[in-house]
């Protein structure tokens, strides 16, 4: 009997594996296939100008800092003072930067967009006796398997 399960790549997966081994399933009878995500082919000249994964807030935080320095400076002369103007300008800067980035991601780089490697998944195949299958299935579900199937 074989059980198929899919997992997200996290520490629960390793907990499940160690518990299966503790219950007498041998390492040789477990087959793990980490799936590749859809990714862009890495190109030296493009990739040095991009840090993938951090893309959405980078311009926002940078503009928030810049705007708030201006906001604080001018705020000393304005009715609401430097602290309120500093905060207002920081939020404005962040919103603007975030909007710019969203625009770039959704319109300018539309054709280059790929799935970001957030939910990388793993397929597990476990070979076991029919009597063990209930136990194995329970262990898999208890460790947050995304899906489980039994083959006989």
């Amino acid at each position, binding site marked *: 009997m074989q059980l198929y399960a899919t997992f997200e790549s996290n520490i629960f997966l390793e907990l499940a*594996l160690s518990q299966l081994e503790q219950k007498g399933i041998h390492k040789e009878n477990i087959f793990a296939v980490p799936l590749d995500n859809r990714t862009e082919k890495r190109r030296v000249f493009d990739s040095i100008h991009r*840090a993938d994964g951090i893309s959405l807030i980078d311009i926002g935080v940078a503009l*928030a800092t810049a705007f708030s320095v201006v906001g604080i400076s001018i705020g000393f002369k304005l009715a609401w003072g430097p602290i309120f103007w500093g905060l207002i300008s920081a939020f404005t800067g962040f919103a603007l930067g975030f909007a710019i980035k969203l625009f770039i991601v959704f319109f300018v780089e539309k054709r280059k967009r790929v799935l970001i490697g957030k939910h990388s998944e793993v397929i597990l195949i476990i070979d076991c006796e029919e009597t063990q299958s209930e136990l194995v299935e329970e262990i898999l579900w208890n460790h947050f398997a995304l899906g489980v199937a039994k083959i006989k």
Partner: protein
Amino acid sequence: MDNYTNDNTARRYIAHVSIFGTTQIHLRNPYIIAWWSAAFPGFGHLLLSKYIRGFVLFIWEVIVNLNANINLGIIYSFQGDIEKVIQVLDTRWLLLYMPVYLFAIWDSYRTTVDMNKVFILADRENHRFNTFSIGALEINYLDKRNPLLAVVWSLCVPGLGQLYIHRIGVAFYVIIWTIIFFYFSHILEAIPFLFLGEIDKATSLVKPEWLLFLPSVYGFSLFDSYMNTVENNKLFEKEQRDFLQKNYQHSKFTLLKGKKVK
């Protein structure tokens, strides 16, 4: 104690996990790194995990900026009061500022471009590295954490986001400087007056030359903790995939061609 004793046989490594934190080489945007060096010399290098030069440039910035009155000059410039700018800048210090300021920007940009190439080579080489470290004073290991929580903690007090993801050096450095900037800018004394609606009183209390350091410290702390949480998560996944492929792909394993049962 580590789970792997490095034998220094790799040409390049992508990460180092020690009890002081997880140090990683990963792809970074050189313009963003250069921007943080421009916001506050030293921050660009801290983002690159080049701590010693980051710390030194940071201290240099605080000393020279305060003595040359650069921050006051910035404030009066934005207010359009050029007379006052000229009056306030201290020429005994001023010319010292520019060369090192530009060096910090240029050097962090150059280093990022170089290290991105190093990353690609190290990533392809894929040499094993230590992933678990336990000692008398700390425990550090590869793990998945939530980038949003890192941002939230950094918003409370800059440096806490770094502490959340175990970047101990930067965490304490940023926390200590945050306390110094809070104390000398008198901002916390001004905040109660803001709640009471006495804005003029609050404005007169704060020291502008110290207040102007805070936006960069907050921005850096947010960005640094967010970026590193994301990269640490990616490193965890990469390492786990290698582990699975090494341990759970036995050549004798055969697939059963049966039917799916309930």
